[in-house]
C-alpha cells in the first residue's frame, strides 16, 4: 500500500484546529487542504488498492495520508457527485419503487438523473419518506469514529435540500410547480429538510463531527437556477435552521454550490455559513469575492477541474501559488479543487496540487 512518502508529501499531522482557525479568519500554521469529495478511483490510485464507497477505513487512510485534517462522510439522502447506486436515495427507490428486481440493472429506471418520482400530490403522499428517516443511513458516520487518527475530524456531507427536491420532482415539473402548485413544492422542500434536521440530532451525538457541509448546487454559470426570492422563501429558511442548530452544537457549517452565486452572497452569509466552496472558477472571481466578502466568510476551492484535467503539473503549481498568495493571508482560505477531485482529472495534477499546498502554504505566506 502506498503512503505519503511515495509521493514526497510531508508526514501527516491532522489537526482540525487548523480548519477552525482558518474559518475564524485567523492564520493557522499552514493553509489547510479541504475536499467534500475525492472520487474513489483517485483514492484507490493514491493508496495502490481499491477503495469502495463502503470501505470507510480505507477512506480515512486516504485523507490522512494525503494530508487532510478532515474526512467527508455522506449523511444525506444524496451523495456528492453522481446519483449512483451507492446513494441512499437510490437504495430507497430501488427497494420501494421498482416494479421488478431486474429493473435494478437499468439505471434509467431508478437514478434521479434519469427519472423523477414525485409528479403530483398523490406521489408525494405515497413516497416512502420513512425509509429516508432510517438511521441506518448514518451507518458510515457511526463506523468512521473508530478509524480516525488523533486530530482529525469528520465532515458530515448533508444538504441537497434544493437538489433532492427538484430531482425527486423532475426539473421541469419542479420549476413549473414552483409557480403553479407552490404548496406541493413547499411540502417536498419541508419533508426533505425535516429529515435532514432530524438526522442532525443524531450527528451531534458524535463528538468527532466537526463540520456539516451543505452540498447543494443553487446556480448555473449565468446566475441562480430559481429566483433569489424563491430561495428566500423555500430553501434558505431551512439552511438557516440547520446552521443555527450546528452552531448551537459547536459544529461548523460549510456550503458548496457551483455556478455564479453573486446575487446570493448576502443570503449565504445571513444563513450563517462559515465557509463557502468552491467559488466556481468558470464564472466567479476568487479575488473579487474575497475582497467583497472576505471579512465575513471563509472560502475553499477554485483550483479548476478543467486545469486538473488538461493542465500540466507546472500550471497546477502556479495556480495553487496564486490562490494561496491571493486568498490565504489573514486566514479564511482552504485549498481545494474547483468542484471535487474527480476521476477524470489527471492523478499527477492532484498530487501536484497537494505538493504545491505544502510548498506555498506555510504561514506567514511569502510572495
Amino acid at each position: 500500500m502506498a503512503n505519503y512518502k511515495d509521493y514526497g508529501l510531508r508526514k501527516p499531522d491532522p489537526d482540525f484546529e487548523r480548519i477552525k482557525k482558518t474559518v475564524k479568519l485567523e492564520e493557522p500554521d499552514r493553509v489547510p487542504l479541504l475536499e467534500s469529495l475525492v472520487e474513489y478511483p483517485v483514492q484507490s490510485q493514491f493508496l495502490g488498492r481499491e477503495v469502495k464507497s463502503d470501505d470507510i477505513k480505507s477512506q480515512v487512510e486516504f485523507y490522512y495520508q494525503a494530508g487532510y485534517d478532515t474526512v467527508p462522510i455522506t449523511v444525506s439522502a444524496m451523495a456528492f457527485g453522481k446519483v449512483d447506486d451507492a446513494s441512499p436515495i437510490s437504495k430507497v427507490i430501488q427497494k420501494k419503487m421498482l416494479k421488478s428486481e431486474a429493473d435494478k440493472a437499468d439505471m434509467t429506471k431508478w437514478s434521479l438523473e434519469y427519472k423523477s418520482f414525485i409528479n403530483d400530490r398523490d406521489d408525494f403522499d405515497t413516497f416512502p419518506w420513512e425509509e429516508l428517516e432510517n438511521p441506518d443511513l448514518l451507518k458510515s458516520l457511526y463506523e468512521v469514529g473508530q478509524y480516525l487518527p488523533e486530530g482529525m475530524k469528520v465532515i458530515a456531507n448533508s444538504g441537497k435540500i434544493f437538489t433532492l427536491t427538484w430531482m425527486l420532482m423532475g426539473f421541469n415539473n419542479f420549476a413549473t410547480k414552483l409557480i403553479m402548485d407552490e404548496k406541493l413544492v413547499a411540502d417536498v422542500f419541508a419533508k426533505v429538510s425535516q429529515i435532514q434536521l432530524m438526522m442532525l440530532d443524531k450527528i451531534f451525538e458524535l463528538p468527532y463531527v466537526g463540520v456539516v457541509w451543505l452540498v447543494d448546487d443553487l446556480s448555473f454559470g449565468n446566475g441562480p437556477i430559481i429566483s433569489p426570492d424563491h430561495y428566500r422563501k423555500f430553501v434558505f429558511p431551512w439552511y438557516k435552521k440547520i446552521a443555527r442548530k450546528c452552531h448551537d452544537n459547536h459544529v461548523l457549517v460549510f456550503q458548496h454550490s457551483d455556478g455564479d452565486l453573486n446575487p446570493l452572497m448576502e443570503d449565504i452569509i445571513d444563513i450563517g455559513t462559515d465557509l463557502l466552496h468552491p467559488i466556481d472558477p468558470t464564472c466567479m472571481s476568487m479575488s473579487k469575492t474575497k475582497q467583497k466578502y472576505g471579512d465575513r466568510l471563509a472560502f475553499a476551492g477554485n483550483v479548476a477541474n478543467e486545469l486538473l484535467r488538461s493542465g500540466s503539473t507546472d500550471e497546477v503549481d502556479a495556480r495553487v501559488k496564486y490562490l494561496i498568495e491571493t486568498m490565504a493571508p489573514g486566514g479564511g482560505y482552504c485549498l481545494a479543487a474547483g468542484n471535487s477531485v474527480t476521476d477524470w482529472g489527471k492523478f499527477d495534477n492532484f498530487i501536484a496540487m497537494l505538493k504545491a499546498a505544502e510548498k506555498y502554504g506555510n504561514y506567514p505566506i511569502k510572495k
Partner: protein
Amino acid sequence: MDTRLEKIKEAVVGGKHNEIEGLVKSAIEDKVDLERIINDALISAMDVVGQKYSNNEIYVPEMLVAAITMKKGLDIINPLLLEGAKESKGKIIMCTVKGDIHDIGKNLVIMMLQGAGFDVIDLGVDLTTDKVIEQVISVKPDIVGLSALLTTTMPAMKTLIEALVAKGLRDSVKVMVGGAPVNADWAQKIGADGYAPDAGKAVELARRLVA
C-alpha cells in the same frame, strides 16, 4: 399596437396561464388576425421572456410558465389555421452529445425554440455520432443543436462536425452548440456555425442561422 395583442403579450410574459385562454378567445371573437396574434403577441412575448431571462430579470420557473402560457394560447389558434398556414420557422434537431445525460439546458432551449415557432425534434440525451448522422439524413433539419455540460463530453461536438463533413452533409445543415463549458471560441475552433450562452440567445442564433 392593438391593446388586445398587448394584453396577450403581457399575459405570456407574466406567465398568466389562467388568463391567456380568455384573452386569446376574446381577440379571435373580435376578428383580430390570427397570424398577428401568433407573431405580434405570442412569439413576440417569448422574445421578451428570452431577453428577461438573459438579463437575470426572470429565472427558469418564470420562463417555463411563460412558455406554458404561450402554448395554451397557441393551442386555441392552431385548429383555426388553414392547413399550410402553420408556418414553421425552421426544423431543428436537438440532443446532448455522447456521454452526457445532463439535459436541463437542452430542454430549456427546446422550449424557447418551440415558443419562437421552430419545429424542434428532441433526440434526447447521450446520442452517438452515428445516431445523430442517421437523424440528419432522415429528418433533414435546418439546424442541429448540440449540448454538453462536461469538458469531457464536449469533444463529441467536434467529432460530430467531422462526421458531417465526412458524410458530405455539412453544407446542408447548420450546427449550433451550447452548454456550461462551451463558448464562442470553442464553437469557432470546431467549425460550428454558432454558440449561444442561454435559451433566449439560442432563439436569436437559430433565427440568424435559418435567415
